């Protein structure tokens, strides 16, 4: 299967995972393994570098790409500061920008996100902005230097699936950088749907972290993403309002 390339890095896995909400740090390496993920996002604000046992970074496989995120940032300026701090702390140069000033629905602020994208891309970061799926804003993000865009399927933690389907389809058609569907994916079938639609990857956190068996669920998501990707490549047949007879009535006219 053709590979996903972000910021010049080739990835085999199209499943990104988060690190919050788990019932223990110890389970994380096992989920990373079972889900075969290669990109792991972590909220820099939660990283405790001063404590070995508590430091989440120690539980992430060294072969994975670390995707620090700016969770907790309310403005572009704050996101930029967090990104710089992440780099200084040795978290590499990938950054997922999350600017959220609405704690009720946790919806991203596209305008501030665009600002932060521009500043950080210029500084050499591989910038992946989390966004509300709006075509014009996605274009602005790409113009500002985003290496991929991460539209939400539904609000964070809602497990409601790909509710912004029509908007994401438009982004997939119109945006030239990879589209990674982030937030809202509540079950493997949601991930499959996103991939069938032509998304380049998905990011899953809550659905994995809060599953009864996150390790097995990791495997399920890996398969779901792969199935969706294969379906996309092999061209899913179009949806029709009515069934289409496999033995047409007017076939004799040929």
């Amino acid at each position, binding site marked *: 299967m053709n590979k996903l390339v972000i910021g010049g890095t080739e990835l085999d896995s199209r499943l990104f995972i988060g690190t919050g909400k788990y019932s223990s740090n110890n389970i994380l390496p096992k989920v990373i393994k079972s889900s075969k993920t290669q990109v792991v996002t972590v909220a820099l*604000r939660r990283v405790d570098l001063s404590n070995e046992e508590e430091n989440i970074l120690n539980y992430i496989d060294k072969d994975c790409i670390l995707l620090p995120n700016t969770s907790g940032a309310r403005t572009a300026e704050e996101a930029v500061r967090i990104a710089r701090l992440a780099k200084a702390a040795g978290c590499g140069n990938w950054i997922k920008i999350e600017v959220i000033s609405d704690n009720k629905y946790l919806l991203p602020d596209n305008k501030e996100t665009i600002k932060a994208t521009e500043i950080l891309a210029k500084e050499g970061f591989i910038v992946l902005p989390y966004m509300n799926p709006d075509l014009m804003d996605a274009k602005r993000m790409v113009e500002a230097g985003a290496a991929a865009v991460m539209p939400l399927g539904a609000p964070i933690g809602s497990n409601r699936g790909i509710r912004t389907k029509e908007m994401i389809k438009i982004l997939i058609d119109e945006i030239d950088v990879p589209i990674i569907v982030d937030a809202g994916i509540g079950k493997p079938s949601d991930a499959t749907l996103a991939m069938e639609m032509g998304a380049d990857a998905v990011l899953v956190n809550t659905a994995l*972290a809060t599953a009864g068996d996150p390790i097995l669920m990791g495997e399920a998501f890996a398969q779901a993403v792969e199935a969706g990707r294969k379906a996309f490549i092999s061209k899913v047949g179009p949806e029709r309002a009515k069934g289409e007879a496999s033995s047409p009535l007017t076939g004799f006219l040929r």
Partner: protein
Amino acid sequence: MSFYEKVKDFNGFNFNNFFNSITEEKIEHILVKDRVNEEDFLSLLSPKAEKYLEEMAQIAHDISINNFGRAILLYTPMYLSNYCVNKCLYCGYNVENGIRRKKLALGEVEVEAKAIYEMGYRHILILTGESRKHSPISYIKDCVKILKKYFSSIAIEIYPLEEDEYRELICSGVDSLTLYQEVYDEDTYKSVHVAGAKSNYKYRLDAPERAAKAKIHSLSIGALLGLEDWRKEAFFTGLHGKYIEKNYPDIELTLSTPRIRPHAGSFEYVREVTDKNIVQAMLAYKIFIHRAGINITTRERAEFRDNLLPLGVTKMSASVSTEVGGHSNNEKGDKQFEIDDSRNLEDIKFAIKAKGYHHIFKDWEPI
């Protein structure tokens, strides 16, 4: 606009009539809704809703797992001073109580900070009795300066401040405010806060909003249950939370359900609040405000705290000493109230794990 206007809207509202009008059908209807309104919230606090605690618990659990996962933030309080100018009938720090008063010198703050840091804590809550004279802003700032070296997040629980004073403390490193209204019922408030600055009901009520205007990161509010009818008090606490969420959507909100505890002094008039009542209030909060965290302090019994975990708790205090200087065993000042969960940190971590949850020491840092 102030939350005070909202409280006043309920002047003359007959809560008992409302509760009597609630039917089982009404509760069942509320429990299938995605978002509940004020009236629904009050219905969930009604005696009728007690029959539906299990259903409410299932809903609250799901909301909490989706929003906060299985992480429980552990923090510990540090008592800086127990000097107080107020006469609150229910509190051990009451100016008229003949307790041993103490205020930590900055050197002692550092010793306490080190002791707490070494235990693993990264979030600290500093508390003082309410006395501007003994614990002025300048003193709090000096303490914060020392604590910044050790802790990623500093919360304050002190007398209410002016907006500019909050801004000043936020600039020096404070990111969270805990401020309990104690009682939302204005008449009862006046009858238990007999004298001192705290007797100003509205000034205290508006304090969380002043902190929000000064751009505090997180706010923790609550009523001290047991001073008034808990159902009404929990209702106003929820409305207060909703008011903050609506007007200051970037605030991280936590609701607390503190229950009055024995203390030095003589207050006898306490209304009973049962475990079941605490649970009902907590569940109603969670269903009303999905994104609000729930804090359970060591005022509650160990076993009860453990059982509350899956109902939506996001934060717990541990290793608590309510004595001034209690973490490093200096010469201590007398305590504010008795705690009930006196387990050590390792035991609490173990208990959290046993419930399928995960303790965390850090989830915030002003950057």
